[in-house]
């Protein structure tokens, strides 16, 4: 059991760190737009590094993505884009030659930014109950419906959209994947203001959106397994991006507590230490799970365990903000920052499959407890 870099990993880490330091010194890295940052990482060879050589990557083990996210967080640069790994790979696996030629390169280099059109007002954790429909009319698919939690839709070029194309099929078998240009007439994006007061995500409206018949990914009605296949890559390395963000948040809280001398209180010190423990648990869990993948062990219960620990870590930090500032937070002495952080942490047990769904999955699928 080894948590330390191998010689190859150490060399990679050192090269990456030096590159990040140069970049920060020359360009003010953190100030870049999402697209520019993506392109910069791509040009330096860091995007798609863990794809197989056949897929156009370098075939590095997933632990290299751990190192990448760790070092990027250490340099306080924006997080590593997640889309190439999970949507790019999916297009590679399920796309036609034409689709691969059109989408793979720009997905990797950042020219195409994707959003994910999965959830709907009536279909969150129970995703298969979605009602957005796609109808083949002549040589075009016509899409009508509404999607919710379409994160980054306002700055995306294309959408990886799930819609019901076979209205008479059983619910898991009537869904297809569509690749939709967000500039297509009939697509409306509206930011959603979440409880923390900020606009982190969007809702999207699809009114008679006409796309070419060839923009279906995989076969008609075959979208559900494709979506599930894609989501398995959303976990893992992507979680490490979460960890990096949470650790940054914790440092911010720590600095605030020190600056305002809140850490003279034993309760405040404990609240901060507690958040540290819970975030560190999530961090180490990601490393252990990725190591298991490298060692060739099946993921088993990893997905639900990771998502449950993610929510615990995120919400522990939210609680620490509230508990550390106490009445200061509730009376606006900090311009509402702590309360905002607290509310920001709440959806972590809802999105990506609620904590309750994760518990069902864990018990029923992996611990062999029967469904009623």
């Amino acid at each position, binding site marked *: *059991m*080894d*948590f*330390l*870099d*191998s010689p190859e*990993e150490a060399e990679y880490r050192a090269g990456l760190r030096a590159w990040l330091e140069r970049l920060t010194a020359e360009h003010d890295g953190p100030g870049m737009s999402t697209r520019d940052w993506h392109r910069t990482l791509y040009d330096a060879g860091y995007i798609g590094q863990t794809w197989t050589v056949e897929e156009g990557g370098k075939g590095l083990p997933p*632990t290299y993505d*751990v*190192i990448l996210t760790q070092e990027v967080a250490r340099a306080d640069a924006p997080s590593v884009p997640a889309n190439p790994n999970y949507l790019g790979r999916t297009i590679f696996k399920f796309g036609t030659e034409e689709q691969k030629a059109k989408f793979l390169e720009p997905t990797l280099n950042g020219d195409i930014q994707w959003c994910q059109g999965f959830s709907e007002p009536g279909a969150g954790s129970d995703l298969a109950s979605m009602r957005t429909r796609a109808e083949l009319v002549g040589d075009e698919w016509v899409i009508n419906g509404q999607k919710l939690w379409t994160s980054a839709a306002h700055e995306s070029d294309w959408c990886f959209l799930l819609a019901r194309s076979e209205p008479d099929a059983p619910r898991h078998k009537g869904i297809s994947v569509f690749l939709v240009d967000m500039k297509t007439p009939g697509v409306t994006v509206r930011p959603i203001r979440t409880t923390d007061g900020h606009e982190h995500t969007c809702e999207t409206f699809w009114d008679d959106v006409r796309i070419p018949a060839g923009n279906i990914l995989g076969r008609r009605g075959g979208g559900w397994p494709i979506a599930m296949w894609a989501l398995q890559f959303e976990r893992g390395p992507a979680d490490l991006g979460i960890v990096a963000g949470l650790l940054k948040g914790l440092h911010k809280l*720590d600095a605030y507590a020190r600056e305002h001398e809140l*850490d003279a209180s*034993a309760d405040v*010190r*404990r609240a*901060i*230490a*507690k958040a*540290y*423990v*819970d975030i*560190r*648990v999530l961090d*180490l*869990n990601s*490393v*252990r799970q990725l*190591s*298991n993948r*490298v*060692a060739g*062990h099946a993921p088993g*219960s990893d997905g*639900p*365990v990771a998502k*449950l*620990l993610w929510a615990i870590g995120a919400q522990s930090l939210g609680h620490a903000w509230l508990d550390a500032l106490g009445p200061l937070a509730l009376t606006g002495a900090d311009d509402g920052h702590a309360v905002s952080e607290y509310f920001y942490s709440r959806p972590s047990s809802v999105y990506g499959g609620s904590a*309750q769904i*994760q*518990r*069902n999955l*864990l*018990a*029923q699928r992996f*611990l*062999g*407890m*029967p*469904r*009623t």
Partner: protein
Amino acid sequence: MLAVPTPEQELLADTVRSLGAAVGVRNPQDLDAFQHEKAWAALAGTGLLGLRVRDDGQPEASGVDVMIVAQGLGAQLSPAPFLASAALAIELLELAGADRPLIDAIAAGDAQPGLLLDRGLTGLADITAGDGGVLIGGVHSDHALALRGNQVVRVQGPFGPGGGADLTSRTTRIAPGTELSATGVGEPLTPEAVRRWTALALTLVSADCAGAMRAAVDGVIEYSKQRIAYGVPIASFQALQHLIADAFTACEAAVTTTSYAAWAIDAAEPVEALLAARTAKAWVGAVARNVVETVMQIYGGIGQTWEHISHVYARRALLDVALFGDENYQLDQIFDLRREVG
């Protein structure tokens, strides 16, 4: 970076499992018939007692190896005091540079010292204070290890009969003001050595607790699939599924943090090793009581009886949570250690 057990470490876990009934208990009745000498001989015979013996300054087995043994013995509710009387005793004597015969006698199973902790169970007792303490391990021994300032001392018994909450690991209280006859062993410990030893202690207690929790949860999952209520297995009730999913997740995370702490024992700087160990212990301290209570709850009526195994798990977990400091104790230390690590 490959944070999975090596084939050798898998084999070690199998070895501990295969000792089975010779070192562990399956139900409370086994406790009366438990043969301490035989269990200790079995552990000595497989070489497990001497894992931390130094050869040319290097421990024979890594922190991860010892953690695997502690976890396995915790899962079997072993009454053999491996943790206190072998792994931690030898580590302490090695760090103090004690004479070889003292150490070799423990590894061979011929000596079984207890550890004298302070009355709050947060660490080794400093006998200078004359505050007495609590003896752990050393079930059939007439001596214990403690500190006088930074000096490791051998305290001469006898200490009186054991008792306490944990039926598998007896404790003996030494009243404040008790005259203790003690002789120094080896050289005074450096602050770094104290940190290293404390990190190992926290890690092994966390591993013991993680093993016990995981075995308790595995047991109740099986039970829930057999036990019928309202015509169906109770495992099909979502309310119970959610309790078990949370307990399972808590155990997984306990194993993960403990694994990292164990790795850090030999591979990281003392301050990082101590931070990792306190982090593992803080997590275990936060979840353990809830996990064993969940197990007792799902067993229902039978889980509330003396003859059932669930309270044996619970009692072991309760003592583990307290040993070397509970969650709040760890959190207080973690806050400062984090700033020291930077």
